[in-house]
């Protein structure tokens, strides 16, 4: 790992200032992706700004929304009884990210800012129509993701919280890579205030995407049968040693069907 200067500011304004002052500065959230990236020398920041003391943790549940602080760990989301009562699908998803040790450190804000094409949280944010709150604005999920490992966040812009509207029903189903357990294909289905929405992670070359054909079918008939025969074109899907684009296209149908069945 290349060396860097380390800062741990105690408020959001100081963190934003430190990140804005140097284009080579990087924010450190839970570090469960970023530290491995640094170890591989794939990134060479001059300054690392640790976000752990900004007070961005915690989960708030109201009658209509679950709001999760940007630095809240996957473990804390997975073990929140209040969040589970409101959006069980989201809480189940958090409990399937990585392993216990990764969940103890990894954060929702870090995961979303990184926008890994196989991340789990991206699908929930998109399917539930969440709003990403930053130090300077609110960004609707439909406008947040901008391709693999890319978002509309500006240099130094920090995710302070994510607000999820509570759906009538929702569920996440993922086909896990058997060794590393990331989503080879993950499908989040939701029926709620924003209508029926289906988001697919792990499969798209451009990262997470909404599945219009499945949304239309489920809007007309919310049942596993409604998505059973919907074919997903493999053209824009990933092919790698773990699975071809055609295989992933097939998995999208299987995962969607199971997710709708589990959502009830």
């Amino acid at each position, binding site marked *: 790992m290349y060396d860097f200067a*380390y800062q741990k500011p105690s408020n959001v304004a100081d963190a934003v200032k430190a990140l804005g002052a140097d284009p080579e500065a990087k924010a450190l959230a839970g570090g*469960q992706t970023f*530290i*491995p990236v*640094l170890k591989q020398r794939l990134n060479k920041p001059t300054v690392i700004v640790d976000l*752990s003391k900004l007070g961005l943790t915690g989960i708030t549940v109201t009658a209509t929304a679950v709001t999760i602080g940007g630095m809240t760990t996957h473990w804390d989301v997975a073990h929140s009884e209040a969040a589970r009562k409101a959006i069980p699908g989201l809480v189940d998803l958090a409990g399937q990210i*990585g392993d216990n*040790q*990764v969940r*103890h450190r990894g954060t929702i804000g870090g995961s979303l800012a990184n926008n890994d094409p196989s991340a789990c949280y991206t699908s929930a944010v998109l399917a539930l129509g969440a709003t990403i709150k930053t130090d300077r604005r609110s960004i609707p999920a439909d406008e947040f993701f901008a391709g693999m490992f890319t978002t509309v966040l500006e240099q130094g812009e920090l995710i302070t919280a994510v607000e999820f509207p509570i759906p009538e029903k929702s569920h996440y189903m993922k086909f896990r890579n058997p060794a590393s357990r990331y989503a080879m294909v993950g499908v989040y289905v939701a029926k709620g205030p924003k209508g029926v929405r289906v988001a697919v992670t792990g499969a798209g070359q451009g990262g997470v995407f909404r599945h219009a054909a499945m949304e239309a079918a489920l809007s007309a008939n919310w049942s596993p049968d409604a998505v059973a025969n919907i074919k997903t074109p493999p053209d824009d899907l990933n092919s790698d040693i773990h699975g071809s684009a055609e295989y992933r296209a097939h998995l999208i149908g299987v995962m969607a069907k199971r997710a709708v069945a589990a959502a009830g």
Partner: protein
Amino acid sequence: MPQVSLTVNGKTSTVEVEGRTLLVELLREKLGLTGTHVGCDTSQCGACVVHVNGASVKACTMLALQAEGAQVITIEGLAAADGTLHPMQEMFREHHALQCGFCTPGMVMSAIDLVQTHPQGITEDEIRHGLEGNLCRCTGYHNIVKAIAAAWPIMHGKQVPLAAE
């Protein structure tokens, strides 16, 4: 050079580190606690698992500076001063839950966290899923699962363990 102050196995230390120094490097190279192993160095194998403020984490995927003010427990901090092993260590020995032993420190630290976070009881399925972050290259998982199941009642004060098979 930056400094980090933390408490490891009950002993407070202040150590000079670089920004890039990993927690596992601090433990092994600065504090001489080589019981915590580096297996893959890519956050996958779990040989480096320690407890930070009560939660199991991969010490190869945390900067030393992130542990400022933290309470850290490593494998060296489990046994009592008179050498009496922690119940999890005792059950690993009783059930022969190790072959080469390289993954064992991380396995034991993860296992203790797993048992502590399941106060109502733990199933074999929960143990196996709970070990997803720990790899044993000898593939000795079966006895590790047995050892953890046997340690649960001792750690929760429920009953005397059954003898090993």
